[in-house]
C-alpha cells in the first residue's frame, strides 16, 4: 500500500486527501493550524452562488473522516528528505517522522499585506479595511464605521497588491474582481440606502455566471463602477477617507469622500509555499508561486519527481478550480504510484 504526504489542509489539500484515500492510498495530511480549511475559514459567503463558506468547509472536513486519512493538525514540516528509492521522509515540528511515496504540496496563498500600500492608509486611517476584514464584518452582520455609524458611502478598491509594480506583484490575483462584486452586493443587501462604488482597473469576470453577476450588481443593486486606480487616500476630520482617482474613462481626476474604504487584497504565495519550494528545490514563477512543469500537461507536476502541487500554491485560483485541481493532482499521483 502506498502512502502520500500532503502538506497543507486547505480546500486543495483536503479534497486531494479524500480523493487519494478513496483510491485506497494511505494519506498523511499536515496542517499548521488547529483546524483544516485554510483561508476558507476567513470567508463568509462564496461567489457565484452565495453559498455559506462554512458549509463547503464542513463538507471538506467530513470527507477527512475517511479511515485512510491521518490528520496532523497544528504541525509544520520542519525537514523533508528524499531517499534513493524516491521515498520521502518528513519531520514534523513535534519531532515525529512521516514517510511517504509521494509528496503533495498544497500550501496555498496568503493575502497581500495592505499596509505595504502605505498611501492607502490601512492600519492608519480608521475606516480603511481589507476584503478579509469585511468578510468578518459580514459574519458578524455589522457594517459600521469606526464611530459606529452606518457608512453612507462605501468604496471598494480593486487590485490592491495585484498588478502593481510598486509592490513587485505583476500578476493578477484573478478572484478579487468577482469578490468585489460579491461583496458589493452583500453590502447593498445589508445597507440598502448606501452608495457603493467599485474602483477598478479592469473587470475580469472569468468564470461562469460572473459576468451575469456583474451585470446584476449594476442593474439590480445599483453598484457604481468607476474605472480608475486609487492613487492616494487621506483622512479628514470626520475620519472619512478622501480618495483621489482618475476617472480614466472621462480623463478627469475625481475626488470622493468615503465613509468606509475596502481594499480588495490580492493573493501572494504563502510563506509556507515559498518555504516548501526552497526546501524541495522546486522552481518559483516570477509571481512567487510555484512554477508547474508545464502549463497544460503538467500543472500538478514539478521538476522534482514525486513532488506534486495543487491549489493556490501554483497560482491564484477560485474554489471551483482549486477543487478540480486537487482531483487532478490525485489522478496524477495515483498514476505515478502505480507506475512505480
Amino acid at each position, binding site marked *: 500500500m502506498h502512502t502520500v504526504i500532503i502538506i497543507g489542509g486547505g480546500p486543495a489539500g483536503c479534497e486531494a486527501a479524500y480523493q487519494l484515500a478513496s483510491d485506497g492510498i494511505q494519506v498523511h495530511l499536515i496542517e499548521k493550524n488547529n483546524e483544516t480549511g485554510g483561508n476558507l475559514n476567513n470567508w463568509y459567503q462564496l461567489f457565484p452562488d452565495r453559498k455559506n463558506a462554512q458549509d463547503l468547509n464542513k463538507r471538506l472536513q467530513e470527507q477527512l473522516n475517511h479511515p485512510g486519512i491521518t490528520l496532523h493538525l497544528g504541525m509544520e514540516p520542519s525537514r523533508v528528505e528524499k531517499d534513493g528509492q524516491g521515498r520521502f521522509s518528513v519531520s514534523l515540528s513535534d519531532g515525529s517522522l512521516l514517510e511517504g511515496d509521494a509528496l503533495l504540496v498544497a500550501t496555498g496563498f496568503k493575502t497581500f499585506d495592505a499596509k505595504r500600500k502605505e498611501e492607502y492608509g490601512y492600519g492608519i486611517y480608521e475606516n480603511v479595511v481589507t476584503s478579509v476584514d469585511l468578510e468578518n464584518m459580514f459574519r458578524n452582520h455589522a457594517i459600521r464605521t469606526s464611530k459606529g455609524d452606518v457608512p453612507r458611502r462605501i468604496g471598494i478598491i480593486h487590485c490592491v497588491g495585484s498588478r502593481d509594480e510598486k509592490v513587485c506583484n505583476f500578476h493578477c490575483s484573478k478572484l478579487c474582481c468577482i469578490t468585489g462584486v460579491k461583496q458589493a452586493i452583500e453590502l447593498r443587501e445589508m445597507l440598502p440606502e448606501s452608495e457603493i462604488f467599485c474602483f477598478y482597473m479592469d*473587470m475580469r469576470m472569468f468564470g461562469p455566471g460572473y459576468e451575469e453577476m456583474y*451585470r446584476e450588481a*449594476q*442593474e439590480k443593486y*445599483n453598484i*457604481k*463602477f468607476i*474605472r480608475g486606480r486609487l492613487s492616494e487616500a487621506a483622512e479628514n476630520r470626520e475620519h472619512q477617507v478622501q480618495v*483621489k482617482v482618475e*476617472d480614466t*474613462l*472621462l480623463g*478627469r*481626476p*475625481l*475626488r*470622493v*469622500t468615503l465613509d468606509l474604504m475596502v481594499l480588495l487584497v490580492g493573493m501572494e504565495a504563502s510563506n509556507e509555499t515559498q518555504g516548501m519550494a526552497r526546501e524541495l528545490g522546486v522552481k518559483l514563477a516570477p509571481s512567487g508561486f510555484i512554477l508547474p512543469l508545464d502549463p497544460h500537461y503538467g500543472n500538478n507536476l514539478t521538476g522534482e519527481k514525486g513532488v506534486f502541487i495543487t491549489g493556490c500554491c501554483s497560482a491564484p485560483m477560485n474554489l471551483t478550480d482549486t477543487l478540480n485541481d486537487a482531483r487532478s493532482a490525485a489522478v496524477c499521483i495515483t498514476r505515478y504510484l502505480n507506475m512505480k
Partner: protein
Amino acid sequence: MNFWGFNISETRSINYDTNDKDMLIHVLQEVPSCKLCIECGGCTAGCTAGRLTSFNIRKLQMFMKRGENKEIREELHKCMLCGKCILVCPRGVDTRKMILSMMKYIKNNQK
C-alpha cells in the same frame, strides 16, 4: 482686469461630494438601463453626430453620473437622435431615451 496677470485656476478634478446629482436621479428613474453601461464606447464609435463633431454620448452619460452637468448642457443639442447607438449597445442601454430624458431635464430646469 486684475493687475496680477493671472487668475486662480479652476480645478479640473471632479468633486463628487459636492456635485449636483439631480439630473442623474431624474434620468435613472426614467431610464434605469443607464446603470448597465460598461463604458465600451460602441455608441460613440458609430455616432452620426460624433462623425462630424466632438459629441460623445458615452462621456456625457458619465459626466451625468458624476454630477458634472455643465458639459451636458453644452453638448447635448448636437445629437441628431437617429438612434443608431441603441442598436450597438451590448448592455441594452436605451441610449436614445437617456438623451431624451437628459433633454427633458434640461428643458424643465432651465435657469
